[in-house]
């Protein structure tokens, strides 16, 4: 079955993972799923595992504008959105767009920014527009935010509250590459310079069309809808979970499962698509009971996932 642009998209993933970012297939795939289903990605990992490279490579190969924001505790909302400055010649205020006006925005160490800035950011992510001094500016399409945070750091951070976490479609780690690969990477040197010469494989317009195709043409049957519902319903009554998956979580899961089905080459979603994508999409949205804080959310979610029967008839 030929799905619109699927070959090209797989080509992008393949080229990135084999030529530029070895050992990061999973993260690349998840980023592409985010892009195609119009969500945002939160990478939780320690520095130096290639988060920035991932964002750079993705923007290069997809011909997207790239903006980078390094978050610190004194970062102000206007540093992100941009601000009006007075133009003396024309005798009027002129709006200078901030780094958020890019297709692909890398928010490094998002948990270092103070809550005020965080919420301005996340507002922009959700609404896809920025209002400064009464004027609303539309953000460019497609719009993908890749935020990173270091889970190991505690001092001087403002952890994202659950309500903000809920706005990220996917949360994942990158993880260390396998030993052999890591040795090879060390031997060969950084690919950062190569990334600048990367040739675009897909146009911006094509990406938008593809994500429209996925939204409209990939079918989500009632069986799989029931399955997703069972999943979020069960998460709400799980003994270890304080508050379960929101309706937005269910929506995101459905969207991501559509993109996953598309990548798998089907024009309909099957429960296995949901299973594969569920942990990165949903696990971070769970709020555990205080007495179970030490348990990883992912483990809880997995225990929940295996309990629910896969609908087959």
């Amino acid at each position, binding site marked *: 079955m030929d799905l619109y642009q699927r070959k090209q998209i*797989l080509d992008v*993933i*393949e080229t990135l*993972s084999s030529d530029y970012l070895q*050992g*990061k*297939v*999973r993260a690349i*795939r*998840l980023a592409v799923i985010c892009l195609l289903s119009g969500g945002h990605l939160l990478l939780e990992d320690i520095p130096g595992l290639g988060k920035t490279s991932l964002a750079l490579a993705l923007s290069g190969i997809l011909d997207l504008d790239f903006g980078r924001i390094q978050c610190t505790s004194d970062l102000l909302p206007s540093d992100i959105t941009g601000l009006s400055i007075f133009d003396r010649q024309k005798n009027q205020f002129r709006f200078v767009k901030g780094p958020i006006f890019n297709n692909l925005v890398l928010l490094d160490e998002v948990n270092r920014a103070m809550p005020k800035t965080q919420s301005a950011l996340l507002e922009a992510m959700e609404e896809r527009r920025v209002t400064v001094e009464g004027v609303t500016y539309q953000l460019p399409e497609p719009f993908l935010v890749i935020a990173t945070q270091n889970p190991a750091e505690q001092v001087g951070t403002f952890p994202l509250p659950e309500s903000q976490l809920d706005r990220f479609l996917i949360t994942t780690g990158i*993880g260390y*590459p*396998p*030993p052999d690969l890591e040795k090879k990477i060390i031997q060969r040197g950084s690919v950062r310079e190569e990334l600048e010469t990367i040739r675009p494989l897909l146009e911006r317009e094509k990406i938008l069309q593809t994500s429209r195709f996925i939204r409209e043409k990939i*079918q989500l*049957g*009632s*069986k*799989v809808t029931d399955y997703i519902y069972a999943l979020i319903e069960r998460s709400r009554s799980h003994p*270890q979970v304080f508050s379960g998956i929101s309706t937005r979580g269910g929506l995101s899961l459905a969207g991501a499962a559509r993109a996953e089905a598309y*990548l*798998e080459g*089907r024009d*309909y*979603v*099957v*429960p*296995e698509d949901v*299973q*594969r*994508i569920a*942990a*990165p999409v949903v696990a971070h949205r769970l709020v555990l009971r205080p007495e179970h804080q*030490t*348990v*990883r959310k992912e*483990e809880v979610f*997995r*225990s929940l996932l*295996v309990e*629910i*029967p*896969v609908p*087959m*008839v």
Partner: protein
Amino acid sequence: MVSVERILQLLVYLSAIVGLLPVLVFLDGWVLVILVLAFIAGISGERQGRYLLGDRLATGLSIAFFSFFLMQVSLSNLVEPLIQMLCLLLAVRLATEKSPRHVLQLFLLSTIVLAASSMLTLDIAYLFYLVLIVLLLTIGLVLLSFYATEPRLRFNRRQWIMLLKVTVLLPVGSLLLMLVFFVILPRTQLPLWNFLNPKPVASIGMADQVRPGSFAELAESGQIAFRAETGRLPDHDIYWRGIVLNRLEGQVWKRVPELAEEKLLVDPAAETRVTIYASPKADRYLVTLDTPRSVAGIKHDLAADGVVTGRWRDAQKIRYQVRVQYTARSRQLGPIDEYLQLPEKISQRLQAVADQLVQEENFREKIALLETFFRRQQLSYANTRLPQTDDPVDTFLFASKRGYCEYFASSFALLLRLAGVPSRLVGGYLSGEYNHLGGYYLVGENAAHVWVEALDDEGLWQRIDPSRLAVNADQALFQQNRQALDSIRAFNDALLHYWSRVVLNYDLQQQFGTLRQVASRVRDLRKIDLRFLPSLLWSSAIFSVFATLFLYRNKSTRAVRLLRAYRKQVAKCCGLETLPEKLGLFELARLTNEPLCHEFSMIYGGAIYRDRDLSVAECRQLRAIISRLRQQRIAIRVALSDALEDNGSSGC
């Protein structure tokens, strides 16, 4: 020239006599008289072509006998009136005209009478009668088919002989086959036609080596390891002992049998008996409950450290009894140096922890400190996404912090050895589901477990289970066992267990014992209070209604049937009893990597997940796939793993 009718009549009388012979001594005098009269009436009726007993009269008589039986019967006296009634019905049929339908009834009645006689008596003569009636019946049925088409058919001598040869071939052949199967069937573990399939491949289970860090994922299988008949034991403390691993070579724990020099401190009061029924398995270690004192019922060696190795034929289900010292500990007699031996390479972090442990004074404090250390490390119990490294203990404790029992146990034991406490690993199974109906523990391969034994200051081996120190120990280790077996599953499994106990584990004595038990239970029926009868009737009526509804509902759609047939076929191809319930179609196709499975899931899923019914053409295709699967062998790793979890694999 002898007519078929004549011979058929002869066969009818003969089979009636064979059926009646075993019960004659139990019949009342008047029933005997009626039987004799019926024979005479029947034979004279055939001579004269006129029967005393017309059809209506015969029906009336049958009803009368039946109501007589109903009046006589009581719970204390069930079997004999029943047999008498059957004999009287037989008598009625003997005295009436022998139309094909009546002949068939006569054959049936004589067989039933013979079968019913086994409720009163069972000796070797029964076998003789059974063979005889099978012979008579098959010949009779063949003749009956002739007779039904042409009542006046006659054959000459040569034709008769030929016919007899052919007809006798059937029962004799089947009897011979029966003899062969009588010997073979009880000794087979799987259906005979399964010999084409590959043997079940164990993926998770007890292993004779512990080597953490070599697998990225642990596959789960739904296979049953063994069933253990015993009373209910304390819930959280059931450790099934399999193997003791006492030598650490590099990162691999192995077993050196010569090391075992110890003595079990026996406490006669705390003895339990367990009978274990194990599935066929590849290794030679017999699982027992911690700690075994003696084993019976199988050729075996019991090592001093409680490890039992047995000898039996391959692929055989085995059964053995174990006398268990539930709380006893064993005293080390031999040298302890071997239990302190260490790998060459120890990481600095590990050594630092060990150095702290060494400073503690006694065993108890060392263990307490080590447990605190484990808790502080926030280790979680998991069997997916495990790091593959050269130094799994170090990685597990300080970096990845996830692992399954092998990681916990080997790290704990290594640290103990570093701290100068002799220690070893014990492999086996943890806990199990208790089936109240059958009175046994059902232990799956998924319950495979490894724990630690350490030598305390008094020279006794103490059991320590470090996996309990995981932050998620409660769910990971005991989740399965907490949910009680639902009653239907328990009933089903109990049935399966008794079937394999009584039928497959062929034991003539036991089979007769079961028969005798059934007979005595029938006699004991008088103990049942009559008040229960209506409720019993009601519940059986309700049950049958539900059963019908259930069957009807299950038969309702083609898709369900196809799916069931497919899953059954794949399970068979993989040598499994059933596929895990939670295994989806596409996941199954991915695991088997079998083109046919991919095709099936695409066609089937393409319809079902698009919310439409399967078309006729699709059904035909699917059926064709199932029948083609029959000729395939598939290797399957039954694991519910995640394609996106693994960094190395490209998910597309």
